[in-house]
Protein backbone atom coordinates (compact mmCIF):
# COMPACT_ATOMS: atom_id res chain seq x y z
CA UNK A 1 0.00 0.00 0.00
CA UNK A 2 2.75 2.41 1.01
CA UNK A 3 6.26 2.05 -0.36
CA UNK A 4 8.98 4.45 0.72
CA UNK A 5 12.57 4.17 -0.46
CA UNK A 6 15.56 6.14 0.79
CA UNK A 7 13.52 9.16 1.80
CA UNK A 8 15.37 12.37 2.68
CA UNK A 9 13.96 15.63 3.85
CA UNK A 10 15.62 18.74 5.16
CA UNK A 11 14.35 22.16 6.13
CA UNK A 12 16.11 25.40 5.46
CA UNK A 13 16.45 27.38 8.65
CA UNK A 14 18.03 30.59 7.54
CA UNK A 15 21.53 29.84 6.32
CA UNK A 16 21.90 26.32 7.65
CA UNK A 17 19.62 23.47 6.75
CA UNK A 18 18.15 20.96 9.16
CA UNK A 19 18.31 17.40 7.92
CA UNK A 20 15.17 15.87 9.39
CA UNK A 21 14.75 12.57 7.57
CA UNK A 22 17.94 10.79 6.63
CA UNK A 23 17.07 7.88 4.39
CA UNK A 24 13.88 6.17 5.47
CA UNK A 25 12.94 2.83 3.93
CA UNK A 26 9.51 1.79 4.93
CA UNK A 27 6.51 -0.02 3.57
CA UNK A 28 3.00 -0.66 4.80
CA UNK A 29 0.70 -3.44 3.66
CA UNK A 30 -3.03 -3.16 3.34
CA UNK A 31 -4.89 -3.62 6.60
CA UNK A 32 -1.95 -2.75 8.85
CA UNK A 33 -2.20 -0.61 11.96
CA UNK A 34 1.18 1.05 12.37
CA UNK A 35 2.38 3.29 15.17
CA UNK A 36 5.19 5.69 14.36
CA UNK A 37 6.96 6.55 17.60
CA UNK A 38 9.74 8.82 18.50
CA UNK A 39 10.64 11.72 20.66
CA UNK A 40 10.07 15.30 19.68
CA UNK A 41 12.31 16.19 16.75
CA UNK A 42 12.75 12.61 15.60
CA UNK A 43 11.03 13.40 12.30
CA UNK A 44 7.87 11.40 12.87
CA UNK A 45 5.50 14.26 12.05
CA UNK A 46 7.56 15.18 8.99
CA UNK A 47 7.27 11.59 7.80
CA UNK A 48 3.53 11.65 8.30
CA UNK A 49 3.21 14.96 6.49
CA UNK A 50 5.10 13.57 3.52
CA UNK A 51 2.94 10.47 3.58
CA UNK A 52 -0.07 12.77 3.67
CA UNK A 53 1.18 14.86 0.74
CA UNK A 54 1.03 17.86 3.01
CA UNK A 55 4.75 18.25 2.49
CA UNK A 56 7.14 17.35 -0.30
CA UNK A 57 10.05 14.97 -0.16
CA UNK A 58 13.55 16.02 -1.18
CA UNK A 59 15.01 12.71 -2.24
CA UNK A 60 13.85 9.11 -2.59
CA UNK A 61 10.56 7.73 -3.78
CA UNK A 62 7.09 7.35 -2.41
CA UNK A 63 4.47 5.11 -3.99
CA UNK A 64 0.94 5.10 -2.68
CA UNK A 65 -1.26 2.23 -3.86
CA UNK A 66 1.05 1.85 -6.84
CA UNK A 67 0.92 5.54 -7.77
CA UNK A 68 4.26 7.38 -7.60
CA UNK A 69 3.83 10.51 -5.53
CA UNK A 70 6.26 12.96 -7.04
CA UNK A 71 6.32 16.52 -8.32
CA UNK A 72 2.66 16.99 -7.62
CA UNK A 73 1.16 20.37 -8.25
CA UNK A 74 -1.28 21.67 -5.68
CA UNK A 75 -4.35 20.60 -7.61
CA UNK A 76 -3.10 17.08 -8.15
CA UNK A 77 -2.00 16.77 -4.54
CA UNK A 78 -5.44 17.89 -3.45
CA UNK A 79 -7.11 15.32 -5.67
CA UNK A 80 -4.83 12.52 -4.42
CA UNK A 81 -5.38 13.51 -0.80
CA UNK A 82 -9.06 13.47 -1.41
CA UNK A 83 -8.99 10.11 -3.10
CA UNK A 84 -6.34 8.25 -1.08
CA UNK A 85 -6.08 9.72 2.37
CA UNK A 86 -8.07 10.46 5.46
CA UNK A 87 -6.60 12.69 8.14
CA UNK A 88 -7.06 12.65 11.88
CA UNK A 89 -5.36 15.50 13.74
CA UNK A 90 -4.37 16.06 17.34
CA UNK A 91 -6.40 19.26 17.52
CA UNK A 92 -9.31 17.69 15.57
CA UNK A 93 -9.37 20.54 13.02
CA UNK A 94 -13.10 20.58 12.58
CA UNK A 95 -14.58 23.64 10.93
CA UNK A 96 -16.17 25.38 13.86
CA UNK A 97 -19.18 26.87 12.11
CA UNK A 98 -20.22 23.61 10.50
CA UNK A 99 -22.30 20.98 12.26
CA UNK A 100 -20.85 17.51 12.92
CA UNK A 101 -22.64 16.15 9.88
CA UNK A 102 -21.47 18.98 7.62
CA UNK A 103 -17.91 18.44 8.81
CA UNK A 104 -18.09 14.76 7.98
CA UNK A 105 -19.63 15.55 4.59
CA UNK A 106 -16.83 17.99 3.66
CA UNK A 107 -14.45 15.55 1.89
CA UNK A 108 -17.44 14.22 -0.03
CA UNK A 109 -18.22 17.76 -1.16
CA UNK A 110 -14.77 17.94 -2.71
CA UNK A 111 -15.40 14.56 -4.32
CA UNK A 112 -18.39 16.17 -6.00
CA UNK A 113 -20.83 13.78 -4.39
CA UNK A 114 -24.43 15.03 -4.55
CA UNK A 115 -25.78 16.78 -1.50
CA UNK A 116 -28.31 14.12 -0.64
CA UNK A 117 -25.78 11.33 -0.89
CA UNK A 118 -23.31 13.35 1.17
CA UNK A 119 -25.80 13.65 3.99
CA UNK A 120 -26.67 9.97 3.89
CA UNK A 121 -23.02 8.93 3.95
CA UNK A 122 -22.15 11.44 6.65
CA UNK A 123 -24.94 10.09 8.85
CA UNK A 124 -23.81 6.55 8.18
CA UNK A 125 -20.26 7.28 9.36
CA UNK A 126 -21.47 9.33 12.32
CA UNK A 127 -23.52 6.32 13.29
CA UNK A 128 -20.43 4.15 12.97
CA UNK A 129 -18.56 6.36 15.47
CA UNK A 130 -21.68 6.43 17.66
CA UNK A 131 -22.59 10.07 17.22
CA UNK A 132 -25.64 9.89 15.01
CA UNK A 133 -27.77 11.81 17.46
CA UNK A 134 -25.14 14.59 17.58
CA UNK A 135 -25.22 15.16 13.83
CA UNK A 136 -26.68 18.64 14.08
CA UNK A 137 -24.37 19.89 16.82
CA UNK A 138 -21.52 22.33 16.32
CA UNK A 139 -18.01 21.22 17.36
CA UNK A 140 -18.16 23.69 20.25
CA UNK A 141 -21.05 21.69 21.69
CA UNK A 142 -19.08 18.44 21.67
CA UNK A 143 -16.53 17.06 24.09
CA UNK A 144 -12.94 16.39 23.04
CA UNK A 145 -13.56 12.68 22.52
CA UNK A 146 -16.69 13.39 20.51
CA UNK A 147 -14.83 15.90 18.37
CA UNK A 148 -12.15 13.34 17.60
CA UNK A 149 -14.80 10.79 16.72
CA UNK A 150 -16.39 13.29 14.34
CA UNK A 151 -12.93 13.83 12.84
CA UNK A 152 -12.53 10.06 12.45
CA UNK A 153 -15.92 9.84 10.79
CA UNK A 154 -14.82 12.63 8.48
CA UNK A 155 -11.60 10.78 7.65
CA UNK A 156 -13.62 7.64 6.91
CA UNK A 157 -16.26 9.38 4.85
CA UNK A 158 -14.06 9.78 1.80
CA UNK A 159 -13.35 6.01 1.94
CA UNK A 160 -9.62 6.53 1.69
CA UNK A 161 -6.93 3.90 1.12
CA UNK A 162 -5.00 5.01 4.19
CA UNK A 163 -5.93 6.81 7.39
CA UNK A 164 -3.22 9.05 8.79
CA UNK A 165 -3.54 10.05 12.42
CA UNK A 166 -1.21 12.63 13.96
CA UNK A 167 -1.26 12.20 17.76
CA UNK A 168 -5.01 11.42 17.66
CA UNK A 169 -5.14 11.05 21.44
CA UNK A 170 -2.71 13.87 22.26
CA UNK A 171 -5.39 16.24 23.41
CA UNK A 172 -7.53 13.67 25.23
CA UNK A 173 -7.51 12.16 28.72
CA UNK A 174 -6.60 8.49 28.96
CA UNK A 175 -10.16 7.16 29.20
CA UNK A 176 -11.25 9.05 26.13
CA UNK A 177 -7.96 8.09 24.46
CA UNK A 178 -8.80 4.43 24.89
CA UNK A 179 -12.28 4.99 23.53
CA UNK A 180 -10.84 6.60 20.46
CA UNK A 181 -8.25 3.83 20.11
CA UNK A 182 -11.02 1.27 20.45
CA UNK A 183 -12.77 2.94 17.55
CA UNK A 184 -9.58 3.04 15.50
CA UNK A 185 -8.99 -0.65 16.18
CA UNK A 186 -12.51 -1.49 15.08
CA UNK A 187 -12.03 0.47 11.88
CA UNK A 188 -8.76 -1.39 11.34
CA UNK A 189 -10.54 -4.69 11.95
CA UNK A 190 -12.69 -3.87 8.93
CA UNK A 191 -9.57 -3.87 6.79
CA UNK A 192 -8.60 -0.20 6.75
CA UNK A 193 -4.90 0.72 6.67
CA UNK A 194 -4.06 3.13 9.50
CA UNK A 195 -0.87 4.99 10.45
CA UNK A 196 -0.67 6.64 13.83
CA UNK A 197 2.00 9.04 14.98
CA UNK A 198 2.25 8.99 18.75
CA UNK A 199 4.73 9.36 21.55
CA UNK A 200 2.60 7.49 24.08
CA UNK A 201 3.79 3.85 24.52
CA UNK A 202 0.37 2.59 25.64
CA UNK A 203 -1.25 3.94 22.48
CA UNK A 204 1.55 2.42 20.36
CA UNK A 205 0.98 -0.92 22.05
CA UNK A 206 -2.56 -0.91 20.77
CA UNK A 207 -1.24 -1.03 17.19
CA UNK A 208 -0.04 -4.09 15.32
CA UNK A 209 3.36 -2.74 14.42
CA UNK A 210 5.61 -0.09 15.96
CA UNK A 211 8.17 1.92 14.04
CA UNK A 212 10.67 3.80 16.21
CA UNK A 213 12.20 6.89 14.73
CA UNK A 214 15.22 8.65 16.12
CA UNK A 215 17.14 11.53 14.59
CA UNK A 216 15.66 10.95 11.18
CA UNK A 217 16.31 7.24 10.82
CA UNK A 218 14.29 4.16 11.67
CA UNK A 219 15.73 2.73 14.87
CA UNK A 220 13.42 -0.20 15.20
CA UNK A 221 10.52 -1.64 13.21
CA UNK A 222 8.73 -4.51 14.96
CA UNK A 223 5.42 -6.28 14.93
CA UNK A 224 3.73 -6.38 18.34
CA UNK A 225 0.89 -8.19 19.95
CA UNK A 226 -1.98 -5.81 19.85
CA UNK A 227 -3.43 -4.69 23.15
CA UNK A 228 -7.16 -4.30 22.69
CA UNK A 229 -8.42 -0.93 23.93
CA UNK A 230 -11.88 -2.33 24.62
CA UNK A 231 -10.70 -3.87 27.90
CA UNK A 232 -10.00 -0.38 29.31
CA UNK A 233 -13.23 1.15 28.17
Amino acid at each position, binding site marked *: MIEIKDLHKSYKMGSNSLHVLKGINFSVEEGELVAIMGSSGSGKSTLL*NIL*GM*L*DELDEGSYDLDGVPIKNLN*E*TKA*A*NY*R*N*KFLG*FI*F*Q*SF*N*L*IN*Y*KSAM*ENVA*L*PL*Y*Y*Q*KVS*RKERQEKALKYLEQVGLKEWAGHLPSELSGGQKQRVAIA*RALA*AEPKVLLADEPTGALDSKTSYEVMDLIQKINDEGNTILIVTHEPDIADMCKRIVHLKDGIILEDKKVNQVRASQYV
Partner: protein
Amino acid sequence: MFDIDIWKEIFEAIQKNKLRTFLTGFTVALGIFIFVTLFGMGNGLNNTFLKFFGDDATNIFRIYPSTTTLPYAGYKAKRRIELDNGDIDDIIEEFGPLIDYVSPRIQRSGKVSYRDESDSYGNYGVGPGMQKAEKSILMKGRYINALDVRQKNKHAVIGRMVEKDLFKGEDALGKFIDISGSVFKVIGVFQDDGGDNEERNIFIPFTTRQLLEGANDKIGEITLAFNEAIGYSGAMKFEKQLASYIRKKKQVNPNDPRGIFIQNVADNLKRNQQFANVLKIIISGIAFAVIISGIIGISNIMVFIVKERTKEIGIRKAMGATPKIITKTILLESIFITAVFGFVGMICGIIILNIIEGKILEEDYFITNPAINSGTAVFVTILLILCGALAAYIPAKKAAKIKPIVALRDE
Protein backbone atom coordinates in the same frame (compact mmCIF):
# COMPACT_ATOMS: atom_id res chain seq x y z
CA MET B 1 -21.79 27.24 -15.10
CA PHE B 2 -23.82 27.60 -11.99
CA ASP B 3 -22.72 25.36 -9.19
CA ILE B 4 -25.39 25.18 -6.52
CA ASP B 5 -23.06 23.47 -4.08
CA ILE B 6 -20.49 26.24 -4.09
CA TRP B 7 -23.24 28.76 -3.41
CA LYS B 8 -24.56 26.65 -0.57
CA GLU B 9 -21.06 26.64 0.91
CA ILE B 10 -20.87 30.43 0.46
CA PHE B 11 -24.24 31.12 2.02
CA GLU B 12 -23.34 28.87 4.91
CA ALA B 13 -20.09 30.76 5.46
CA ILE B 14 -21.95 34.08 5.24
CA GLN B 15 -24.71 32.98 7.58
CA LYS B 16 -22.41 31.55 10.18
CA ASN B 17 -20.10 34.57 10.17
CA LYS B 18 -22.61 37.35 10.50
CA LEU B 19 -20.29 39.91 12.09
CA ARG B 20 -17.66 39.46 9.43
CA THR B 21 -20.26 39.70 6.69
CA PHE B 22 -21.78 42.75 8.30
CA LEU B 23 -18.44 44.54 8.66
CA THR B 24 -17.51 43.99 5.05
CA GLY B 25 -20.96 44.83 3.83
CA PHE B 26 -21.25 47.90 5.99
CA THR B 27 -17.99 49.33 4.65
CA VAL B 28 -19.16 48.81 1.10
CA ALA B 29 -22.68 50.08 1.68
CA LEU B 30 -21.45 53.15 3.55
CA GLY B 31 -18.89 53.95 0.86
CA ILE B 32 -21.44 53.77 -1.93
CA PHE B 33 -24.05 55.57 0.16
CA ILE B 34 -21.77 58.51 0.91
CA PHE B 35 -20.62 58.64 -2.67
CA VAL B 36 -24.14 58.70 -4.07
CA THR B 37 -25.36 61.28 -1.56
CA LEU B 38 -22.38 63.60 -1.93
CA PHE B 39 -22.35 63.33 -5.67
CA GLY B 40 -26.08 64.00 -5.77
CA MET B 41 -25.66 67.06 -3.54
CA GLY B 42 -22.95 68.33 -5.86
CA ASN B 43 -25.29 67.96 -8.78
CA GLY B 44 -28.01 69.70 -6.78
CA LEU B 45 -25.72 72.65 -6.15
CA ASN B 46 -24.94 72.88 -9.82
CA ASN B 47 -28.65 72.67 -10.64
CA THR B 48 -29.32 75.64 -8.39
CA PHE B 49 -26.75 77.75 -10.15
CA LEU B 50 -28.05 76.76 -13.55
CA LYS B 51 -31.61 77.44 -12.49
CA PHE B 52 -30.67 80.75 -10.95
CA PHE B 53 -29.42 82.05 -14.23
CA GLY B 54 -31.08 79.78 -16.72
CA ASP B 55 -34.40 81.61 -16.56
CA ASP B 56 -32.97 84.92 -17.75
CA ALA B 57 -30.97 85.76 -20.82
CA THR B 58 -27.24 85.85 -20.05
CA ASN B 59 -26.04 88.49 -22.53
CA ILE B 60 -27.38 91.17 -20.22
CA PHE B 61 -26.06 94.28 -18.52
CA ARG B 62 -28.24 95.88 -15.91
CA ILE B 63 -27.45 99.53 -15.35
CA TYR B 64 -28.51 100.80 -11.93
CA PRO B 65 -28.21 104.44 -10.87
CA SER B 66 -27.63 105.25 -7.22
CA THR B 67 -26.31 108.01 -4.98
CA THR B 68 -22.76 109.24 -5.49
CA THR B 69 -20.22 109.06 -2.72
CA LEU B 70 -17.52 111.32 -4.17
CA PRO B 71 -17.76 114.95 -5.26
CA TYR B 72 -17.01 115.52 -8.95
CA ALA B 73 -17.02 118.35 -11.45
CA GLY B 74 -18.41 120.85 -9.01
CA TYR B 75 -21.14 118.51 -7.74
CA LYS B 76 -21.23 117.49 -4.12
CA ALA B 77 -21.26 113.92 -2.94
CA LYS B 78 -24.54 112.19 -2.13
CA ARG B 79 -26.08 113.38 -5.34
CA ARG B 80 -28.80 111.11 -6.65
CA ILE B 81 -28.20 109.92 -10.19
CA GLU B 82 -31.24 109.21 -12.28
CA LEU B 83 -31.60 107.77 -15.74
CA ASP B 84 -34.10 109.08 -18.28
CA ASN B 85 -35.40 108.24 -21.73
CA GLY B 86 -32.71 110.34 -23.36
CA ASP B 87 -30.02 108.12 -21.89
CA ILE B 88 -31.36 105.10 -23.71
CA ASP B 89 -31.34 106.94 -27.03
CA ASP B 90 -27.80 108.16 -26.39
CA ILE B 91 -26.56 104.69 -25.48
CA ILE B 92 -28.11 103.24 -28.62
CA GLU B 93 -26.54 105.99 -30.71
CA GLU B 94 -23.11 105.52 -29.11
CA PHE B 95 -22.93 101.72 -29.05
CA GLY B 96 -25.47 100.76 -31.75
CA PRO B 97 -23.78 97.72 -33.32
CA LEU B 98 -22.83 96.22 -29.96
CA ILE B 99 -26.41 96.21 -28.73
CA ASP B 100 -29.02 93.56 -29.33
CA TYR B 101 -31.87 95.31 -27.55
CA VAL B 102 -32.44 97.75 -24.69
CA SER B 103 -35.31 98.13 -22.30
CA PRO B 104 -35.87 100.39 -19.32
CA ARG B 105 -37.28 98.88 -16.17
CA ILE B 106 -39.28 100.86 -13.67
CA GLN B 107 -40.05 98.71 -10.69
CA ARG B 108 -43.12 99.38 -8.59
CA SER B 109 -45.41 97.26 -6.55
CA GLY B 110 -48.90 97.64 -5.27
CA LYS B 111 -52.35 96.24 -4.96
CA VAL B 112 -53.76 94.60 -8.05
CA SER B 113 -57.39 93.61 -8.18
CA TYR B 114 -59.90 91.97 -10.42
CA ARG B 115 -63.49 92.13 -9.20
CA ASP B 116 -63.36 90.89 -5.60
CA GLU B 117 -59.93 89.29 -5.79
CA SER B 118 -56.89 91.36 -5.01
CA ASP B 119 -53.30 90.90 -3.98
CA SER B 120 -50.04 92.76 -4.02
CA TYR B 121 -47.76 92.19 -6.98
CA GLY B 122 -44.62 93.71 -8.40
CA ASN B 123 -45.17 95.58 -11.64
CA TYR B 124 -42.56 96.68 -14.08
CA GLY B 125 -42.64 99.41 -16.66
CA VAL B 126 -40.69 97.94 -19.52
CA GLY B 127 -40.11 98.02 -23.24
CA PRO B 128 -40.63 95.19 -25.76
CA GLY B 129 -37.05 93.99 -25.28
CA MET B 130 -37.73 92.86 -21.73
CA GLN B 131 -39.48 89.72 -22.93
CA LYS B 132 -36.21 88.35 -24.28
CA ALA B 133 -34.22 89.53 -21.27
CA GLU B 134 -36.56 87.81 -18.83
CA LYS B 135 -37.15 84.86 -21.14
CA SER B 136 -40.88 85.20 -20.56
CA ILE B 137 -42.83 82.63 -22.50
CA LEU B 138 -46.19 83.89 -23.69
CA MET B 139 -48.93 81.37 -22.97
CA LYS B 140 -51.56 83.47 -24.67
CA GLY B 141 -52.02 86.95 -26.06
CA ARG B 142 -48.96 89.06 -26.84
CA TYR B 143 -46.20 90.98 -25.11
CA ILE B 144 -45.88 94.77 -24.87
CA ASN B 145 -44.91 96.12 -28.30
CA ALA B 146 -43.50 99.35 -29.69
CA LEU B 147 -46.97 100.67 -30.37
CA ASP B 148 -47.99 100.23 -26.72
CA VAL B 149 -44.91 102.19 -25.72
CA ARG B 150 -45.53 104.96 -28.21
CA GLN B 151 -49.24 105.32 -27.42
CA LYS B 152 -48.71 104.82 -23.67
CA ASN B 153 -51.43 102.17 -23.69
CA LYS B 154 -52.77 100.88 -20.43
CA HIS B 155 -51.96 97.33 -21.33
CA ALA B 156 -50.61 94.72 -18.96
CA VAL B 157 -48.90 91.35 -19.43
CA ILE B 158 -49.45 89.24 -16.34
CA GLY B 159 -47.75 86.16 -15.00
CA ARG B 160 -49.37 82.75 -14.88
CA MET B 161 -49.69 82.86 -11.07
CA VAL B 162 -51.37 86.27 -11.22
CA GLU B 163 -53.99 84.88 -13.56
CA LYS B 164 -54.38 81.84 -11.35
CA ASP B 165 -54.77 83.91 -8.15
CA LEU B 166 -56.99 86.68 -9.42
CA PHE B 167 -59.02 85.03 -12.13
CA LYS B 168 -59.52 81.62 -10.52
CA GLY B 169 -59.41 79.73 -13.74
CA GLU B 170 -61.19 82.34 -15.77
CA ASP B 171 -59.46 83.51 -18.94
CA ALA B 172 -57.73 86.80 -18.13
CA LEU B 173 -57.17 87.85 -21.71
CA GLY B 174 -59.04 91.05 -22.59
CA LYS B 175 -60.21 91.55 -18.99
CA PHE B 176 -59.49 94.72 -17.06
CA ILE B 177 -57.52 94.76 -13.84
CA ASP B 178 -56.83 97.53 -11.40
CA ILE B 179 -53.15 98.22 -10.74
CA SER B 180 -52.65 100.67 -7.86
CA GLY B 181 -55.75 102.57 -8.87
CA SER B 182 -55.38 102.51 -12.65
CA VAL B 183 -57.26 100.20 -14.95
CA PHE B 184 -55.22 98.07 -17.32
CA LYS B 185 -56.30 95.67 -20.01
CA VAL B 186 -54.66 92.24 -19.88
CA ILE B 187 -53.12 91.60 -23.27
CA GLY B 188 -51.01 88.58 -22.46
CA VAL B 189 -50.23 85.88 -19.91
CA PHE B 190 -46.71 84.51 -19.59
CA GLN B 191 -44.88 81.76 -17.81
CA ASP B 192 -41.28 81.73 -16.70
CA ASP B 193 -38.84 78.92 -15.92
CA GLY B 194 -37.69 80.99 -12.94
CA GLY B 195 -40.56 79.63 -10.91
CA ASP B 196 -43.71 80.88 -9.23
CA ASN B 197 -42.19 84.14 -7.97
CA GLU B 198 -41.25 85.20 -11.46
CA GLU B 199 -44.78 84.35 -12.55
CA ARG B 200 -46.22 86.78 -9.98
CA ASN B 201 -44.94 89.76 -11.95
CA ILE B 202 -46.85 92.18 -14.17
CA PHE B 203 -45.33 94.07 -17.07
CA ILE B 204 -46.69 97.32 -18.46
CA PRO B 205 -45.28 99.82 -21.02
CA PHE B 206 -42.72 102.04 -19.30
CA THR B 207 -44.18 105.11 -20.96
CA THR B 208 -47.52 104.35 -19.34
CA ARG B 209 -45.81 104.17 -15.95
CA GLN B 210 -44.15 107.56 -16.63
CA LEU B 211 -47.47 109.04 -17.69
CA LEU B 212 -49.13 107.85 -14.49
CA GLU B 213 -46.38 109.43 -12.41
CA GLY B 214 -46.81 112.90 -13.80
CA ALA B 215 -45.54 112.42 -17.33
CA ASN B 216 -41.90 112.35 -16.31
CA ASP B 217 -39.16 110.72 -18.31
CA LYS B 218 -37.35 108.95 -15.48
CA ILE B 219 -36.51 105.30 -15.81
CA GLY B 220 -35.38 103.21 -12.90
CA GLU B 221 -32.78 101.13 -14.56
CA ILE B 222 -31.72 99.98 -17.98
CA THR B 223 -31.55 96.41 -19.10
CA LEU B 224 -29.24 96.12 -22.07
CA ALA B 225 -28.56 93.00 -24.10
CA PHE B 226 -25.29 93.03 -25.96
CA ASN B 227 -24.81 91.39 -29.30
CA GLU B 228 -23.71 87.88 -28.49
CA ALA B 229 -21.37 87.92 -31.48
CA ILE B 230 -18.90 90.09 -29.54
CA GLY B 231 -18.14 87.17 -27.22
CA TYR B 232 -17.14 87.15 -23.61
CA SER B 233 -14.05 89.34 -23.88
CA GLY B 234 -15.91 91.75 -26.14
CA ALA B 235 -18.63 91.97 -23.51
CA MET B 236 -16.10 92.74 -20.79
CA LYS B 237 -14.65 95.52 -22.90
CA PHE B 238 -18.11 96.81 -23.75
CA GLU B 239 -19.03 96.86 -20.06
CA LYS B 240 -16.03 99.10 -19.28
CA GLN B 241 -16.77 101.46 -22.18
CA LEU B 242 -20.42 101.63 -21.21
CA ALA B 243 -19.58 102.41 -17.60
CA SER B 244 -17.17 105.20 -18.44
CA TYR B 245 -19.59 106.61 -21.04
CA ILE B 246 -22.47 106.82 -18.59
CA ARG B 247 -20.28 108.13 -15.76
CA LYS B 248 -19.01 110.84 -18.04
CA LYS B 249 -22.49 111.68 -19.24
CA LYS B 250 -23.87 111.80 -15.71
CA GLN B 251 -20.76 113.48 -14.31
CA VAL B 252 -19.94 110.74 -11.86
CA ASN B 253 -16.40 110.48 -10.51
CA PRO B 254 -14.75 107.57 -12.41
CA ASN B 255 -13.42 106.33 -9.07
CA ASP B 256 -16.77 106.44 -7.30
CA PRO B 257 -17.75 102.93 -6.28
CA ARG B 258 -21.34 104.02 -6.47
CA GLY B 259 -23.36 106.40 -8.65
CA ILE B 260 -23.60 104.01 -11.56
CA PHE B 261 -23.49 100.29 -11.19
CA ILE B 262 -23.43 97.82 -14.04
CA GLN B 263 -24.32 94.26 -13.33
CA ASN B 264 -22.87 91.93 -15.91
CA VAL B 265 -25.03 88.81 -15.92
CA ALA B 266 -22.70 86.92 -18.25
CA ASP B 267 -19.74 87.59 -16.02
CA ASN B 268 -21.70 86.67 -12.90
CA LEU B 269 -22.93 83.54 -14.54
CA LYS B 270 -19.48 82.56 -15.64
CA ARG B 271 -18.03 83.19 -12.22
CA ASN B 272 -20.84 81.40 -10.47
CA GLN B 273 -20.62 78.49 -12.85
CA GLN B 274 -16.91 78.28 -12.20
CA PHE B 275 -17.63 78.38 -8.51
CA ALA B 276 -20.25 75.67 -8.85
CA ASN B 277 -17.93 73.59 -10.97
CA VAL B 278 -15.09 73.92 -8.50
CA LEU B 279 -17.46 72.94 -5.71
CA LYS B 280 -18.62 69.99 -7.74
CA ILE B 281 -15.06 68.93 -8.43
CA ILE B 282 -14.24 69.17 -4.74
CA ILE B 283 -17.34 67.20 -3.80
CA SER B 284 -16.61 64.59 -6.46
CA GLY B 285 -13.06 64.42 -5.17
CA ILE B 286 -14.29 63.79 -1.65
CA ALA B 287 -16.78 61.25 -2.96
CA PHE B 288 -14.06 59.39 -4.83
CA ALA B 289 -11.82 59.54 -1.79
CA VAL B 290 -14.64 57.87 0.13
CA ILE B 291 -14.82 55.16 -2.51
CA ILE B 292 -11.07 54.66 -2.35
CA SER B 293 -11.12 54.43 1.42
CA GLY B 294 -14.00 51.98 0.99
CA ILE B 295 -11.82 49.90 -1.30
CA ILE B 296 -8.97 50.03 1.19
CA GLY B 297 -11.43 49.05 3.90
CA ILE B 298 -12.57 46.02 1.93
CA SER B 299 -8.98 45.06 1.21
CA ASN B 300 -8.17 45.17 4.89
CA ILE B 301 -11.21 43.15 5.85
CA MET B 302 -10.46 40.64 3.11
CA VAL B 303 -6.87 40.22 4.27
CA PHE B 304 -8.17 39.77 7.78
CA ILE B 305 -10.85 37.30 6.71
CA VAL B 306 -8.40 35.18 4.80
CA LYS B 307 -5.97 35.30 7.69
CA GLU B 308 -8.75 34.30 10.06
CA ARG B 309 -9.70 31.47 7.77
CA THR B 310 -6.17 30.18 7.19
CA LYS B 311 -6.81 27.18 9.40
CA GLU B 312 -10.14 26.46 7.79
CA ILE B 313 -8.50 26.68 4.38
CA GLY B 314 -5.82 24.27 5.57
CA ILE B 315 -8.48 21.83 6.76
CA ARG B 316 -10.30 22.13 3.48
CA LYS B 317 -7.11 21.50 1.54
CA ALA B 318 -6.34 18.45 3.65
CA MET B 319 -9.84 17.24 2.83
CA GLY B 320 -9.03 17.53 -0.84
CA ALA B 321 -9.96 21.10 -1.82
CA THR B 322 -7.98 22.30 -4.82
CA PRO B 323 -6.45 25.80 -4.81
CA LYS B 324 -8.83 26.76 -7.58
CA ILE B 325 -11.94 25.91 -5.62
CA ILE B 326 -10.61 27.76 -2.55
CA THR B 327 -9.89 30.91 -4.54
CA LYS B 328 -13.23 30.64 -6.25
CA THR B 329 -15.17 30.28 -3.01
CA ILE B 330 -13.51 33.23 -1.29
CA LEU B 331 -13.80 35.37 -4.38
CA LEU B 332 -17.45 34.59 -4.97
CA GLU B 333 -18.23 35.21 -1.33
CA SER B 334 -16.56 38.61 -1.46
CA ILE B 335 -18.21 39.56 -4.74
CA PHE B 336 -21.57 38.46 -3.44
CA ILE B 337 -21.26 40.51 -0.25
CA THR B 338 -19.93 43.62 -2.02
CA ALA B 339 -22.58 43.35 -4.71
CA VAL B 340 -25.50 42.95 -2.34
CA PHE B 341 -24.38 45.62 0.11
CA GLY B 342 -23.11 47.87 -2.66
CA PHE B 343 -26.52 47.96 -4.26
CA VAL B 344 -28.17 48.38 -0.88
CA GLY B 345 -25.95 51.40 -0.26
CA MET B 346 -26.68 52.75 -3.70
CA ILE B 347 -30.43 52.37 -3.32
CA CYS B 348 -30.30 53.98 0.16
CA GLY B 349 -28.33 56.90 -1.26
CA ILE B 350 -30.83 57.40 -4.06
CA ILE B 351 -33.73 57.16 -1.62
CA ILE B 352 -32.12 59.74 0.67
CA LEU B 353 -31.53 62.05 -2.28
CA ASN B 354 -35.20 61.76 -3.18
CA ILE B 355 -36.35 62.35 0.39
CA ILE B 356 -34.26 65.43 1.09
CA GLU B 357 -35.28 67.11 -2.11
CA GLY B 358 -37.48 70.03 -1.20
CA LYS B 359 -38.05 73.71 -0.68
CA ILE B 360 -36.01 74.15 2.51
CA LEU B 361 -32.99 72.51 1.02
CA GLU B 362 -33.37 74.61 -2.08
CA GLU B 363 -33.80 77.91 -0.31
CA ASP B 364 -31.41 77.46 2.61
CA TYR B 365 -28.68 75.34 1.11
CA PHE B 366 -28.92 76.10 -2.61
CA ILE B 367 -29.44 72.47 -3.49
CA THR B 368 -32.00 71.81 -6.21
CA ASN B 369 -33.06 68.32 -7.30
CA PRO B 370 -30.08 66.50 -5.79
CA ALA B 371 -29.71 63.46 -7.98
CA ILE B 372 -27.14 61.12 -9.34
CA ASN B 373 -27.16 59.85 -12.83
CA SER B 374 -28.05 56.17 -12.43
CA GLY B 375 -25.24 55.28 -14.84
CA THR B 376 -22.68 56.90 -12.54
CA ALA B 377 -24.13 55.20 -9.48
CA VAL B 378 -24.10 51.78 -11.12
CA PHE B 379 -20.63 52.37 -12.52
CA VAL B 380 -19.21 53.27 -9.13
CA THR B 381 -20.95 50.32 -7.50
CA ILE B 382 -19.54 47.95 -10.09
CA LEU B 383 -16.14 49.60 -9.69
CA LEU B 384 -16.30 48.94 -5.97
CA ILE B 385 -17.39 45.35 -6.56
CA LEU B 386 -14.51 44.83 -8.96
CA CYS B 387 -12.06 46.40 -6.55
CA GLY B 388 -13.53 44.31 -3.74
CA ALA B 389 -13.04 41.22 -5.88
CA LEU B 390 -9.48 42.23 -6.63
CA ALA B 391 -8.87 43.01 -2.98
CA ALA B 392 -10.15 39.55 -2.13
CA TYR B 393 -8.40 37.85 -5.01
CA ILE B 394 -4.86 38.59 -3.86
CA PRO B 395 -5.22 37.23 -0.32
CA ALA B 396 -7.46 34.41 -1.62
CA LYS B 397 -4.80 33.39 -4.11
CA LYS B 398 -2.24 33.54 -1.33
CA ALA B 399 -4.47 31.50 0.94
CA ALA B 400 -4.96 28.88 -1.73
CA LYS B 401 -1.17 28.54 -1.93
CA ILE B 402 -0.77 28.01 1.79
CA LYS B 403 0.59 24.56 2.47
CA PRO B 404 -1.97 22.74 4.56
CA ILE B 405 0.80 21.70 6.92
CA VAL B 406 1.54 25.36 7.69
CA ALA B 407 -2.10 26.23 8.06
CA LEU B 408 -2.76 23.28 10.36
CA ARG B 409 0.25 23.76 12.58
CA ASP B 410 -0.93 24.16 16.13
CA GLU B 411 -0.22 27.53 17.61
